[in-house]
C-alpha cells in the first residue's frame, strides 16, 4: 500500500479552495500601484492542483501509515510517550486562544498571561526552582537557553576562563551539541561500573576552567545518581554550576526536586513529562527553570503580576535577551497547564510512581530473558542489551526493533546510550495497564524465541509494513529530498 505524492494527482485548473472575490470599490484596482517589475516574481512554484476530497483522502491515508500513542504502545526510551489527554486538544483548539495575536495590547491578553504565569508557578513548585521562562520551543532549545545563562553569569563575574562543560558519556546527544553552540568546550565524564557518574573522574576534571556539569537524573540508563548531593557540592566548591536535563523528569515528579539536588538551572520537556503531544517531532516546549543565582539572567520579557494585572518586564539588565520570536509555543504551554490542573499535586506524583512501577515490572519480566547490564531496580526506564543475541544468533538490537513493529509496537530507543552494546532502551510510562504490558512482554518473548529458532525472519523484519527496511546508504549517496 503506497500513497502517491499529491503533486502527481494534480490536474491544471482543479481547485480545493476558493477565495471570495476582491470587493474594493470599482476603479480602485486601476488606481492600485503595480509592484515594480524588478521586484516581481518570474517563475511559478509547482504546488498541487487538486480537489478538496483529494486533499482529505491523501492526508487521511498518510495518517493511517503512522503509529502514534493513540495507535498503540510506544515505549521509546527517554521520550516519555505517555497518553496525551483529549481535554488538552479540545482546549488548545478554543478560538479564545487560537485567535489571539501575540502583539495585542497587554490588557487584552490577560487570559494568556495568566496561563503562562500560573504554569511558571506550578513548574517552580514541582522542580524546586525559583522561576523560569517559557520561551524555549523544545528541550534542546532549553539547554541552549540555560547554558547561555551560565555563560552570561560567568562573563558578568569576570570568570572568562570558565570555558568547559562536563558531560557524562551517557548523556543525550543534544547536551554536547548545545554546549558547543553556546561556545563551550565539551569534556566527557566517565561512567563507573554501576552506570553512574564516576566521581573520581569528575573530581580530576573539576577546576577553575569548568563552567558547568550537565546531568540527567535519573540518567539515561534509568538509574538515579545516588551521589548527586556529593556531586553538586563538588561542582559548586570548584566554582561551577549544575545543569539538569529534565528529559527524565517523569521519574521523580512529586517525589524529589532538582532544586533540592543542588541544580542551578534545568529545562523541562512539556511534551514529555507534562503530556503534551509530540506532533510527529514537535512542536514541543522546553521551559528553563532557575534558582535565585541565575534568575537575573532569564530571557526577556519576564511576566510579572501587578495591581493592574499581568505585565511584561523588559528592564532586566543581565537578561540574555530573547530566544524565540514571541513568547514560546503557547498552545503547547496551555496543554501542559491543563494537564497539571487535571492531575494536581497527588496526580503528578502518582504519574511518576506508576511510571517507575511500570518500568520495573517490564524490566523484571524481560530481565529474565535478556541482559539488563546496569542496575537491579530502575526508575522510569531501563536499558537492555541484545549483545548476547548478536553473538549467539546474529540478531541485533535493530532486528529486534523491526520485529516489534510487526507485532504492532513502536520499538524502544535503540543504540543509545552509547555505553551499552546493542542497547534497547524501554520507557513504558504510567499510561500502560498491566494487561498492555503483559501483551508487550509476550510479543517480546516470541521475538526472543524466533531469534533462536528462525533468525532469518527477524533479519528480514518488518514484514507487515508498506515498506521493508530502507536503503539508507542510497538515501545518503543519492539524496532525493524533494519532488
Amino acid at each position, binding site marked *: 500500500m503506497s500513497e502517491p505524492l499529491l503533486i502527481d494527482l494534480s490536474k491544471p485548473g482543479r481547485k480545493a479552495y476558493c477565495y471570495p472575490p476582491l470587493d474594493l470599490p470599482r476603479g480602485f484596482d486601476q488606481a492600485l500601484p503595480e509592484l515594480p517589475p524588478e521586484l516581481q516574481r518570474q517563475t511559478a512554484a509547482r504546488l498541487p492542483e487538486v480537489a478538496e476530497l483529494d486533499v482529505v483522502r491523501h492526508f487521511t491515508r498518510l495518517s493511517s501509515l*503512522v503509529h502514534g500513542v493513540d495507535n498503540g504502545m510506544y515505549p521509546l526510551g527517554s521520550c516519555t510517550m505517555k497518553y496525551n489527554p483529549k481535554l488538552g486538544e479540545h482546549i488548545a483548539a478554543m478560538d479564545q486562544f487560537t485567535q489571539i495575536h501575540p502583539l495585542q495590547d497587554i490588557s487584552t491578553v490577560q487570559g494568556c498571561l495568566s496561563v503562562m504565569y500560573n504554569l511558571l508557578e506550578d513548574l517552580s513548585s514541582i522542580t524546586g526552582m525559583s522561576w523560569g521562562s517559557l520561551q524555549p520551543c523544545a528541550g534542546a532549545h532549553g539547554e541552549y537557553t540555560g547554558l547561555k545563562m551560565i555563560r552570561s553569569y560567568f562573563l558578568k563575574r569576570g570568570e572568562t576562563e570558565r570555558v568547559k562543560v562536563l558531560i557524562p558519556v551517557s548523556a543525550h546527544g543534544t547536551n554536547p551539541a548545545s554546549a558547543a553552540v553556546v561556545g563551550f568546550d565539551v569534556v566527557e565524564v566517565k561512567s563507573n561500573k554501576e552506570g553512574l557518574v564516576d566521581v573520581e573522574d569528575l573530581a580530576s576534571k573539576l577546576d577553575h576552567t569548568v563552567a558547568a556539569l550537565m546531568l540527567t537524573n535519573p540518567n539515561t540508563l534509568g538509574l538515579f545518581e545516588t551521589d548527586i548531593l556529593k556531586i553538586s557540592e563538588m561542582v559548586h566548591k570548584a566554582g561551577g554550576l549544575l545543569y539538569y536535563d529534565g528529559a527524565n523528569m517523569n521519574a521523580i515528579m512529586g517525589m524529589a526536586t532538582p532544586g533540592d539536588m543542588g541544580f542551578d538551572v534545568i529545562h523541562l520537556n512539556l511534551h514529555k513529562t507534562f503530556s503534551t503531544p509530540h506532533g510527529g517531532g514537535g512542536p514541543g516546549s522546553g521551559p528553563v527553570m532557575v534558582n535565585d543565582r541565575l534568575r537575573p539572567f532569564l530571557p526577556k520579557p519576564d511576566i510579572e503580576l501587578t495591581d493592574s494585572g499581568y505585565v511584561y518586564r523588559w528592564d532586566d539588565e543581565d537578561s540574555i535577551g530573547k530566544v524565540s520570536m514571541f513568547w514560546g509555543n503557547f498552545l503547547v504551554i496551555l496543554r501542559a497547564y491543563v494537564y497539571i490542573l487535571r492531575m494536581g499535586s497527588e496526580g503528578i506524583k502518582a504519574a511518576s510512581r506508576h511510571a517507575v512501577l511500570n518500568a520495573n515490572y517490564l524490566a523484571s519480566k524481560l530481565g529474565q530473558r535478556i541482559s539488563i547490564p546496569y542496575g537491579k531496580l530502575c526508575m522510569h526506564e531501563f536499558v537492555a542489551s541484545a549483545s548476547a543475541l548478536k553473538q549467539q544468533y546474529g540478531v541485533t538490537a535493530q532486528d529486534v526493533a523491526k520485529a516489534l513493529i510487526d507485532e504492532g509496537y513502536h520499538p524502544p530507543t535503540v543504540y543509545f546510550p552509547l555505553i551499552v552494546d546493542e542497547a534497547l532502551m524501554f520507557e513504558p510510562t504510567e499510561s500502560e495497564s498491566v494487561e498492555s504490558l503483559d501483551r508487550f512482554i509476550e510479543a517480546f518473548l516470541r521475538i526472543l524465541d524466533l531469534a533462536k529458532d528462525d533468525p532469518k525472519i527477524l533479519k528480514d523484519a518488518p514484514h507487515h509494513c508498506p515498506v521493508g527496511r530502507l536503503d539508507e546508504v542510497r538515501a545518503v549517496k543519492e539524496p532525493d529530498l524533494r519532488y
Partner: protein
Amino acid sequence: MIYPYIPHTDADRRAMLKAIGVESIDDLFSGLGADLLLEDSVPISHGRTEDEVQRMIDSIAQRNVRGIPFLGCGCYDHITPATVRALSSLPSFVTAYTPYQAEMSQGLLQAIYEFQSMICEITGLDVANASLYDGANAAVEAASLMLAAKRKSRVVLVSETIHPFALKVLNTWALGTEHSITLIPQLDGTADLEKLESMLGDEVAGLIVQTPNRYGLLEDYTSVAERLHANGSLLTISADPLSLAIQKSPAEWGADIAIGDTQALGLPLAFGGPSCGYMAVSQALLRRIPGRVVGATVDSQGRRGYTLTLQAREQHIKRERATSNICSNQALAALMTTIHLSSLGWGGMVEAAQQSYAKAHYLAYHLAQLPGVTLVWDKPFWCEFPLVFSDAKRMRKFLQELRNEGIFAGVRLSSLTRKSADELVLLVAVTEKRSREELELYLAAARRVLK
C-alpha cells in the same frame, strides 16, 4: 485510588509489586535517599475533573479580548481552509514522535518530504529541511551555517531592517561567543546596501536581510549576491513565504539560503506559537543544513519509501560536532502548512498574496489622506505599512478609539524595539481576510479621530 490517565487498580499494583519482588512503590524510590525524598506534597492545587478544568479555563479565556486584527509584525491573520485543522488533528499525526522508525512512519515522512518540496518550490532553492522553531531561530541557524561554510570567518552582517525580535534573538545567540553581528544601517526604511562594499572583509561570513522588512517594505537586492559571492560570503534572505507568491524569490535574487516562518501559511495566531521556521539552501550547502531532512529511497524489493537521512550532520550522531543542536522541531505546524498549501495550490497562494496587497494599499491610500498621519517612505510594500503619527497623544487616542470599535488598529513599533525614536510608528497589517466592511469600519473610525 483512581488517578486521571493512570489505569492501575489496587489489585494491579499488588500483583506488579509482587512480580518485581518489592513491598511497595516507595521501595522503588529508596535510591533517592531520605535527604531528597519530599515529605510533603508539592504545593500546587489538587486535581480537578475534566468539567472543572474546562470551567476554569473558560473563565480564564474570557480575560482574552478579541478584536478585528490589523496586527502583523511576523504573525498574520490569514484565511485558512477547514481542511487544515481537520486533517492536522488526526490522532496518529498528533501523537507520534520523530519518525525514527521509518517503516511505521511512512505517512509522516512522506508529508515532510512534500513540505520540503513545497518550500523548495516557493523559495526557488534546492534543499529544504523538515522545519526549525520559528523565523527568528531560522535566522540564528542561517548565521551559524554561514560561519561554518567560510573558514576563519566570525562576522555576520545583519540588516537593521529585519524584525526587531529576530534581531534580539540573533544578539542573544552572539552573546559570549567569538562570533559577532555587524548591523547594516537603513536608509529611508530599507537596508542601505550601498554601504555593503565598505563592510566586506575576510572575516565576513555573510549577510542576512529581510523582505518584506520590519516596516512591511519590500527591499531591492539587485547585485547584492554577486558582491557577497565575490568576497566568498553568502546571502541569506528572510521572507514571509506568502509574499513570495508575488515578489521575487530568494533564488531569483541569487540567495544561498532562504529562511522565514510559515505562520502565514495555515497557522493560527495562537498568541505567537507554535509557528514554524523554514530553511532552504542551495545544493552546495546540502550537507550543512541543520535539523531533520527526509529523503526518498527504496527497500530491498525496490519499493519507494521515505526515511530520515543525512543524519551524520545531527546531534544524536555527531554530538558536539553537529551542525546544530536541534532535535525536536515544529513537525505538526509544518504539516499544517503542507495541508494549507495542498489546498490552496499556487493559484490560491497568488490570490491570497494579491488580495492582501490590494487591500493593504486601499487602506494605506485612504489613511494617507487624513491629517496628522503620513506614510513616511514612498517605497513598495506588500500587506503591511508604517503609519507615522504627528504626536504621541494623537496616536494613543487613535488606538483607543479604534479599540472601542472592536478594531486592533496596528502594532506600535516601539513596543518591539523599546526605542523612543520609534514611538510614533504604527505598523498596520491588512490580509486578504479583512472584509470590505472591516476596512470601511477602520477608515470611518480613523476619519472621526483624525479630523
